């Protein structure tokens, strides 16, 4: 454990973090990663460069700060193509959170465009699907816990609970082996390349894949069909369009190493 912490210290400078970086981000070393998706061109695994990932999803308070700095992202100003009508609809007003959106809760009802703009505004970007999947493959002690049925069961249990109750605050769960919290069990999260996860709306077309979706490698198929826990997240992301917002979809940001 101590050894691992030392490794992190080595990695963090690589990520080239500024200001709030060290506290807010965890450094991940990257490397070859076997995705649950079947990438034809990466049979030995996808290559992930060192990067830093926010330890927690972005909260209402943080997002309020963002729309205060950049008013064009307030719900009464945002362009319709960037966010549907329900964007931040749970806030009391365009610039006040109110009782339905506590400061420490993860922000939801945000479009991909708004999430992307937020990350840009803090000198970051949205994580790629591969980065997200790599970070989320860990549990509290293992960097890749995906073969453990208990890992899957925990995640599936969260999927099976409807989103009709108030969200817990961000950062409540124990960090995973990378020092990242809440990747599972709190909210869905946008990824930078979510729209390349072209899983067919009809899951049974896998034997007759739409070759026109070839450039979206996620369209090809799942490599690990038993890994429903990952598959469902891909399905969720692929049902969305960039302006969509939902009651349980938030995001966090990433930064590349220099």
């Amino acid at each position, binding site marked *: 454990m101590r050894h691992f912490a030392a490794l992190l210290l080595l990695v963090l400078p690589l990520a080239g973090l500024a200001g709030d970086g060290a506290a807010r981000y965890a450094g991940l070393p990257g490397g070859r990663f076997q995705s649950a998706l079947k990438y034809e061109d990466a049979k030995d695994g996808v290559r992930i460069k060192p990067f830093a990932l926010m330890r927690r999803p972005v909260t209402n308070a943080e997002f309020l700060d963002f729309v205060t700095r950049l008013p064009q992202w307030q719900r009464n100003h945002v362009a319709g193509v960037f966010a549907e009508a329900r964007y931040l609809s749970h806030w009391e007003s365009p610039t006040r959170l109110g009782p339905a959106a506590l400061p420490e809760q993860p922000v939801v009802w945000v479009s991909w465009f708004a999430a992307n703009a937020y990350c840009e505004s803090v000198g970051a970007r949205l994580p790629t699907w591969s980065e997200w999947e790599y970070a989320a493959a860990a549990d509290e002690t293992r960097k890749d816990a995906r073969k453990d049925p208990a890992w899957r069961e925990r995640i599936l249990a969260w999927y099976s*609970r409807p989103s009709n109750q108030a969200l817990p605050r961000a950062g409540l769960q124990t960090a995973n082996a990378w020092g990242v919290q809440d990747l599972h069990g709190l909210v869905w999260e946008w990824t930078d390349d979510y729209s390349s996860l072209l899983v067919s709306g009809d899951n049974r077309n896998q034997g007759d894949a739409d070759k026109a979706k070839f450039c979206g490698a996620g369209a090809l198929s799942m490599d690990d069909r038993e890994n429903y826990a990952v598959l469902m997240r891909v399905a969720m992301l692929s049902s969305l369009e960039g302006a969509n917002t939902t009651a349980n979809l938030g995001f966090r940001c990433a930064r590349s190493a220099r």
Partner: protein
Amino acid sequence: MKQVTRLLALAVVAALALAGCSSGKPDNADTDASQATAGDGETGGSRKGDFGPPQGAPVKAVLTSPPQVPPATGRTAPAKVIVELDVVEKEMPISEGVTYTFWTFGGTVPGSFIRVRQGDTVEFHLRNMPESKMPHNIDLHGVTGPGGGAASSFTAPGHSSRFTFKALNAGLYVYHCATAPVGMHVANGMYGLILIEPPQGMPPVDKEFYVMQGDFYTTGKYREKGHQPFDMEKAIEEHPTYVLFNGSEGALTGDKALATRVGDTVRMYVGNGGPNLVSSFHVIGEIFDKVWYEGGTKFQENVQTTLIPAGGAAMMEFHMEVPGSYVLVDHSIFRAFNKGALAILKAEGADNKAIYSGKEVDYVYLGDRAQPNMQAVATAAASAKAGDLSVEEQINAGKALFAGTCSTCHQPEGQGMEGVFPPLAKSDYIAGDTKRVPTAILHGLVGPVKVNGKDYDSNMPPMNQLTDDEVANIATYVLNSWGNPGGRVTKAEAAAIRQQKPSNASGGH
């Protein structure tokens, strides 16, 4: 009436076409033509299911929760029908004290029943509730087109999708969610039935019910209390924890039993959502007068149990003659009694003793070896094998065997039955020659015989189904009971007697 004319016209055209086609084969021409005109041939399926564009104002479909069925459409022309179906993820009881997170079409398992008419144009709105965790879609087996609408209806939480299809084939069809992972969406209850009525409608009946079977997989055991999550491993292994009608144990029992009356004609629309199991659907105490097997156009008559595949359906019709509770089961029977596949159809009304009497008499019946103490027999057998069989053991084993085989006629205490079966108790016939006992057992006894001063015209059949051991033990028991002289018959003696047939032996039955 217009429809009938139209159908006749179609039949004539079909007959002409068939005759024309087969003109090169004169042998078959007559048969084909007569079949087509007889009206019992094919209905034409999707090729003859398009009755043209929708007429009149659009109609909003009436959707019903199970076990209710929407009223007949009552239409004679194709219409545009608007169906609005909500996807709701919710926690509901799956058994008493056990809850499960179901994903539903319309808030129930199975989902809302949809009823349209062949030829209708259906504008389908799938609305995924904002509270939903997952995206969902719908595949209607009654849709002609890839995916049955699935790819056109992939809907994120808080969104709604619309697609339109023409219902070309009449029949009863399953619908279900086909979003990844399909199996989990189905296992969570995302299925229901759509009835596409034939142009002339379904024959009228008194009661219609909507019942749908499904198998469920929980991490806890059957009836283990509390909230139970979905168990993917069990689902892949196809080992359901529950097999249920209408989504929960007790959904159709007790106060919620399906209610009908004597004299009613009942029709059930029964689907099987799976995801895995095939159903052997049966109603205990009723015979289906008609089964539109596989939910299709033709019916079979007088059926006891009908097979409903996963992702399939059937309609069945029967007339209620006698009141009482009729149990609906999956006759793959452990599912009914150990996994919950059980529902009740309750018929009220007057008895009809001519058709079913109810219980008339309760009487004792002791068949062969009704309740022998087979332990004694086993002990004797073991001792015989070891070569240290005692008289006591023989008597005990013989007593058990006597109770099954012999006591029916000679009576439990060997007292016999006057004028019919001679007594074995204190018998001077036995005392005269103890070998008579094994001989009578093995060869029977026919003709007049005097026992204790009374005449019997005996007709005892040989009991040669008994082994030499058993004969020896029974005979030893008889010799040592009820004041008889005692003694012992060995297995070897019994074997020897079996070889010699006396003159008064029975020829058997």
